[in-house]
């Protein structure tokens, strides 16, 4: 296993582009944390202090931060996808196999890279949220309450990366893999919309759609990813009362299970493609 990681290290770290993006990614995570603690935007003449809105209060901070920084995962998606598509365009996958690496080893090394990126990101995010919370939290809650959002974040990244892995192996070209991601994203959006509208039309009527209602389409891969960490609940009354405006929205266990199943499916499909295809 260590051998496979060392091989991947050579492939990723000694490539200037991926090295730069990796470093940049972790810097961005830290910078987001620093900026969040310091910006005081002015909206309509009223100075808003993000830190004072209860953004960084335990336990809400765990959801707020993991929800916010999840977008940065696209950086790692670029690295993961190019790292794999390069193996096709440089024909090094073929050479690796000829040199005696098995297809299983090849896939494991790529999966390990995904897990490590997800793990490092989670550690960073955990650290940032903890520090921000220690500085700004005024709630007096136990800091470790709702820390499971970091675990959801870890899962969310792994799910997303396994989708990237599959698309990269399937489509073999960087541009197409990203196009695949966009198609999946828009496709899921369209299907979700159809379901929501149809249900409303049959049931409650189009004018009063219940956003909390159950939808099968919530279990499509990217929807599962966004449902792992939902947008924090915002209640303006809380703010008026002088407290926090954010509230925790729990993640249902069914999304955790769905994420794990999808990860298995995408990794399995990747392996099947590798096995089946001639190089």
């Amino acid at each position, binding site marked *: 296993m260590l*051998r496979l990681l060392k*091989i991947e290290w050579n492939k990723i770290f*000694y490539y200037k582009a991926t090295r730069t993006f990796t470093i940049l990614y972790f810097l961005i995570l830290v910078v987001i944390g620093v900026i969040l603690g310091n910006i005081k935007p002015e909206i309509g003449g009223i100075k808003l202090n993000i830190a004072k809105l209860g953004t960084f209060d335990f336990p809400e901070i765990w959801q707020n931060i993991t929800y916010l920084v999840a977008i940065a995962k696209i950086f790692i998606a670029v690295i993961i996808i190019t790292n794999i598509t390069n193996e096709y365009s440089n024909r*090094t996958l073929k050479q690796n*196999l*000829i*040199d*005696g*690496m098995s297809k299983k080893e090849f896939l494991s090394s790529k999966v390990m890279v995904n897990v490590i990126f997800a793990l490092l990101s989670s550690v960073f995010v955990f650290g940032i949220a903890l520090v921000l919370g220690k500085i700004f939290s005024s709630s007096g809650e136990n800091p470790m309450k709702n820390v499971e959002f970091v675990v959801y974040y870890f899962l969310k990244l792994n799910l997303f990366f396994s989708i990237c892995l599959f698309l990269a192996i399937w489509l073999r070209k960087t541009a197409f893999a990203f196009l695949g991601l966009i198609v999946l994203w828009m496709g899921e959006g369209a299907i979700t919309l159809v379901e929501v509208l149809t249900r409303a039309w049959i049931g409650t009527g189009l004018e009063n759609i219940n956003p909390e209602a159950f939808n099968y389409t919530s279990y499509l891969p990217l929807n599962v990813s966004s449902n792992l960490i939902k947008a924090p609940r915002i209640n303006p009354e809380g703010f008026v009362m002088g407290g926090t405006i954010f509230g925790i929205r729990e993640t249902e266990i069914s999304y955790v299970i769905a994420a794990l199943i999808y990860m298995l499916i995408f990794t399995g499909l990747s392996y099947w493609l590798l096995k089946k295809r001639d190089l």
Partner: protein
Amino acid sequence: MENVLEIKNLTKKFGRLTAVNDLSFSVEKGNVYGLLGPNGSGKSTTLGMILNVINPTEGSWYWFGKKSDVESLKRIGAIIEHPNFYPYLSAEKNLEITAMIKGAPFSKIEEKLEIVGLLERKKDKFRTFSLGMKQRLAIAAAMLNDPEVLILDEPTNGLDPQGIISIRNIIQKIAAGGTTIILASHLLDEVEKVCSHVVILEKGKTLYSGRVDEMSASFGYFEVAAANNEILLNALHEISGFEKISNEGTHLKAILNRDMASEDLNRTLFEKGIVLNHLVKRKESLETQFLQITQNKN
């Protein structure tokens, strides 16, 4: 003799196209084998299958007497088509990856770079290399684990004469060390120069498999001319020992079906009152033999 590789009834179909058709042959230890055939005859597909990158439709093969597995590949060094490396990595980093895959010690890297003459360039990125240097690096990579078998697919393709000579020298040096070599090529000349055995492929079928020097039982042919070729032609027909006599314009070509010395032919014709102004005895080149074999089977 110990068989390093045994291929049995190997077949590969790409849709309707049969790239390799029921191919069987075996490779003995210590010999240099040529896999000869025109472009598209199934050479690379065959090598791809025995190297685990192409899934066979049917058939089986055995490396070192065992059903192929990843471990046996680590005892083989192979270069397929053109050199495949990470363009953004230095020669050294690239070889580190190969060494880690094959389980060879890093100390081999310098040693092999030295052999192919790339030691001074080890810190340079692969993409800055010329084709000849890339090909040499590929040989260094293939030699990293001191393989028992070396597989080369068109190793001199696209190289300049100097590059070709340098690659051939390296191959001959490796062969002299007792390494079994399988060399795929469409260049007969190359196979003739380097190989002891040859397997000729065409459209995925084996046409010939055996020693290079036993490839053709041909005795060669004469090129003759006289003042009057008509009379010469008639005279040649009276002499036994020719398989075919044809008029090539300025001279006649008489293909032998038994051994005959030039002086014997000259004497016989002189006795018949014909004086030759041109007499050459030739052996078919491997190229013509190859064409003959290909044509006979069609």
